[in-house]
C-alpha cells in the first residue's frame, strides 16, 4: 500500500511538470494582452511600456523557469515563514508570483478567496452527497415506485437545467419578488454573533441551493444506476438466502459495492470545489476562486491563470490517488502491493 502510494506520487512529479509547461505554453500562445482592457484612449507606446514593466519582453522559457522557481521554491518558503516565523535566507528579496491586474502576490489573492468558495461550494458539495445517498438508494430499491418516479423527474430537471438559469430564477423569486434573501453576497461579513450568523446563512441559501440541486441530481442518478446493477447480483441473492436482514443486505452489501464508482466521482469532484463554481459565483457575486479565475482569463492576467490552473492540476492528480486508495477500503478484492 505504502509503496503503491509512493510510486504514484513519484510518477505524479513528471506529469505535473509537463502539465505546468503545457499550461504555460498554451497561455503564452493565446492571443491575449494584459493591456487589452485599458481604454482605447491609451496610446500603443504606453501599452508597450506597461507590458515591458510586467516582464513580458522576456522570452517565454525565461518567464517559465522564473514562474516555476517562484511556484516551487519561493512561494512554499514564504508560506513556511509566514506560519512559523522562521526566516530562511533573503526573504525580503524573494520575488513572489505577482498578478498583472492587481500587482499583488497571487497567493494572497487565492487565500483571500478561499473562505467564501469553501463555504458556498464546499457546503453545497457536502449537502449534495448527503441528500443523494438516501434518495439514490431508495429510488433503486423501490424502482418504478412513486418515490422513484418523482426522484427521477426532479433529478433530471436538476441535471439538465444550467445553474445560470436556476440561479436567476431563484434571484427573481426569492430576491426580487419575496425579498427573503439578498442577491448580492457580502464577502466582508464576519460571523461573530447570532445576528451575523443568520445573515451569513441567509446570503448562502440561494447559491448553496442552486449548487446542491445540481450536485445531488448528478450523484443520485449515478448511485441509482449503480445500485440497480448490484441489486441483481448473485451475492445479493446469497446474502438474502443466508437469512440476513434486508437492511443489512441493502445498506451493508449493495450500497458498499455501489459506492465504488460513486466514490471516484466524489473524489474527482473535490478539486472542483477549489475551482469554485464560476457561473454561480458570478451570478450571486460570491467572488470566490471561480470568479477570480474568470476575471484573470478575461484580463489576460497570465500569472494568476497559470497558478490557479496549476493548483487545480495538482489537486486533480492528488485526489486521483486518494480515489485509488479509497477503492482498497471499499472493495477488499482490490489490494495494492
Amino acid at each position, binding site marked *: 500500500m505504502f509503496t503503491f502510494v509512493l510510486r504514484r506520487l513519484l510518477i505524479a512529479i513528471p506529469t505535473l511538470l509537463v502539465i505546468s509547461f503545457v499550461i504555460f505554453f498554451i497561455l503564452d500562445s493565446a*492571443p*491575449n*494582452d*494584459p*493591456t*487589452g*482592457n*485599458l*481604454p*482605447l*484612449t*491609451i*496610446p*500603443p*507606446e*504606453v*501599452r*508597450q*511600456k*506597461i*507590458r*515591458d*514593466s*510586467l516582464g513580458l519582453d522576456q522570452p517565454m522559457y525565461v518567464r517559465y523557469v522564473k514562474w516555476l522557481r517562484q511556484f516551487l521554491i519561493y512561494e512554499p518558503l514564504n508560506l513556511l515563514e509566514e506560519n512559523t516565523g522562521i526566516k530562511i535566507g533573503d526573504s525580503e528579496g524573494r520575488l513572489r508570483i*505577482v*498578478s498583472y*491586474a*492587481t*500587482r*499583488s*502576490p497571487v497567493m*494572497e*489573492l487565492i487565500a*483571500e*478567496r478561499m473562505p467564501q468558495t469553501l463555504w458556498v461550494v464546499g457546503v453545497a458539495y457536502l449537502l449534495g452527497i448527503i441528500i443523494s445517498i438516501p434518495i439514490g438508494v431508495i429510488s433503486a430499491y423501490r424502482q418504478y415506485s412513486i418515490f422513484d418516479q418523482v426522484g427521477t423527474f426532479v433529478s433530471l430537471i436538476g441535471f439538465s437545467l444550467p445553474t445560470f438559469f436556476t440561479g436567476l430564477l431563484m*434571484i427573481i423569486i426569492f*430576491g*426580487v419578488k419575496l*425579498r427573503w434573501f*439578498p*442577491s*448580492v453576497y*457580502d*464577502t*466582508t461579513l464576519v460571523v461573530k454573533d447570532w445576528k451575523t450568523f443568520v445573515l451569513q446563512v441567509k446570503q448562502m441559501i440561494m447559491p448553496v441551493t442552486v449548487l446542491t440541486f445540481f450536485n445531488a441530481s448528478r450523484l443520485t442518478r449515478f448511485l441509482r444506476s449503480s445500485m440497480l446493477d448490484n441489486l441483481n447480483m448473485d451475492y445479493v441473492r446469497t446474502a438474502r438466502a443466508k437469512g440476513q436482514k434486508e437492511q443489512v443486505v441493502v445498506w451493508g452489501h449493495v450500497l458498499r459495492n455501489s459506492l465504488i464508482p460513486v466514490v471516484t466521482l466524489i473524489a474527482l469532484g473535490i478539486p472542483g470545489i477549489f475551482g469554485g463554481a464560476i457561473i454561480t*459565483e*458570478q*451570478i*450571486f*457575486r460570491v*467572488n470566490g476562486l471561480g*470568479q*477570480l479565475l474568470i*476575471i484573470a482569463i*478575461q*484580463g*489576460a492576467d497570465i500569472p494568476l491563470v497559470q497558478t490557479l490552473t496549476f493548483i487545480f492540476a495538482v489537486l486533480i492528480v492528488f485526489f486521483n490517488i486518494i480515489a485509488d486508495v479509497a477503492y482498497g477500503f471499499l472493495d477488499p478484492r482490490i489490494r495494492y502491493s
Partner: protein
Amino acid sequence: MKIRLTVVLLLLAIFTLGLAQRGSAGHVNILYWQAASTLNPYLSGGTKDIEAASLVVEPLARCDQDGNILPWLVDEVPTIENGGVAADLTSITWKLSDGLVWSDGSPVTSADVVFTGEYCMDENSGCNSLQQFDGVASIEAVDDSTIKITFDAPKPFPYGPFVGATTPILQKAQFADCIGANAQNCTDANFAPIGTGPFVVTDFRANDVVTYKANDNYRVADQPAFATATFKGGGDAASAARAVLETGEADYAWNLQVEPEILAGMVAAGKGTVVTAFGANVERLMVNFTNDDPSLGDYRSLQFANGAPNPHPFLADINVRKALSMAIDREILTEIGYGKAGKPSCNVLAAPAAYASTANDGCLVQDIEGANKLLDDAGWLPGPGGTREKNGVPLKILYQTSTNSVRQGTQALVKEWWKEIGVDTELRNIDAAVFFGGDPASPDTYGKFYADIEMYTNGFNGTDPEVYMAGWTCDEASDVTNDWLGSNIPRYCDPAYDALAAKLSSTAAFADRVAIVKEMNDMLMKNYVMIPLIHRGSVSAHSNTLTGVQMNAWDSELWNIAGWNRK
C-alpha cells in the same frame, strides 16, 4: 470659483437635510459589475479602478458634467489671463489651496505633486496615464504650495497633468519607494493609497470589494454625508441594475449596458432612476483605405506594396464609402441597441458640445434609393447574384468587430441594409481581448485591420480633442513600422489634414481651436474616412433615496460623492 462651488454644495446640503453633518447619512452601497483590481489609478486596468480610487485620491482640477475645468485642490485654474499660464504657452503654474491635508493629517505640499509626476514619467513604472504628461519637460516646486510645469514646446492646452480622475496626486511619503520597477511590488500602497478625498480605504479585496470610511481630515467640515461606503464588484450589468432598480440592495450601479427594454422594465419598479452622460465616445465604422487581400501576404493592409501604392480595390472610391453611410439608419440602430445610452451621430467628434459640427447632419436620414443611384452612376452595376461590381471587382465586404451582443445586432442590421444596395457583407466577430489587444503576431487586432470595415467605439480622455484629432494624420497610419499600433486605423493620408493638425497644435485661443477642430472633423466626415454611427453615453442608475448624484462623462462618475446624501 472653488469657494463658490463649496458654498453651492453647502447650501444644497443644508437645503436637503436641514442640517448636515459628516457621516450622518450612514452607509452607501456602490455596485460596479467590474470589480476594482487596484486603487492606484496609474497602474489600473480600466475605468473601474480609476473610479474606485477617485473617492480617495484627487487631482488638482476636475472636469464638471459639461466638460468645464473646475479648481479642486487649488483656488483657481491657471489661465493666460490670470498669469498662471505663460504667455509663450510653455509653462503652467498651479498654486495649492491653503491648509490642505492628507487623510493622515500631514500637509499636502508641492513636493507631493512633483513626486507624482516623476512617478508616472519614470521609464519603468508602467504608468498608463503617461500620455497626459506628453511634452512635459520638467515639473518643479517653486515653493511649498506652488508647482510649475514646463513643456518642451508651446502647449496650447496645458491641462494634461493633474487634471481629471486619471492623474490624481499621490502622497510622496507613501509612494517614495514605489517608483519605477518597484511600482509592481508596493501592494500595500497600491491597495490603500492615502489621499485628500472624502473617503479613506478601510479594506480592499482585489477584484472583489472596497470598503471606505469618511475622511476625518476632509477639507469640507460637513462632508461626506456618508460615514461608510462599499464598492462591490462582480456579476453582470443586468443584475447590477436589478439590485438598484428592483431590490434596492445597492444605491448606485455603474455602466448598465443592458438591453433598453429590460432596463425600462426595471425602472418601472419605482426604486431608482437611470442617469446618462455623454462623453466623447462614438461607435463608428472604420473604412480600410488599403488593400487587405490575403494574397498580398506581408503587404496586406499596408499603404505601399513593393513600393507601389496599395489602395483598397473598391473602398478607395468615395462613392462606395458614401453609399455605405447613406444606407444606414442610425435611429434604428440606436433604438434597438442603445436606448437612452446612445444618440445617432454624424460626427466622429460629437462632444464636448462646443466642438460638435452640424455640417454632416444629413446622415441622420437613411437614403437607400440615393445610395443605389450613387452606385449606379459611379458604374458599380449589379452582377449575376445581385452584388454590384465594376471591372470585375465585386462589392464584397468583410465587416469585423468585437464579440458583444449589441455589436452583433448592429452588424446584422447593417448587413441587411447593405444588401439592399447590392453590397455583399460577410460578418466576423473577435473576442475583445484579442481584437483590442496589441499582439503584433495576431492577424485579428483592430490595428492590423485585415478586413474592409471594422466597428468599435473610441473617444478621448479629458475635454481637449487635439491628440484625438491628430490621430488621423499620415504619420499615425497603423502599419508594420509601428507594430500596427498607430492610431490612424483607416490609413487615410491627406497633407491638408496634417496641416490643420499642425495648426491646431500651435493655436491657443479657444474659439480658433474650435473652428479648426470642426474643420478637421468635417474633412474626415466628407471624405467618409470613418462612418460614425452612435454617440455613446454612459448609463448608471441610482436609488431614489440618494441625492446629489451628478453623472459626469468627463471625469469619474463618483467625482462629487462628497456631496451625496440620503433623502
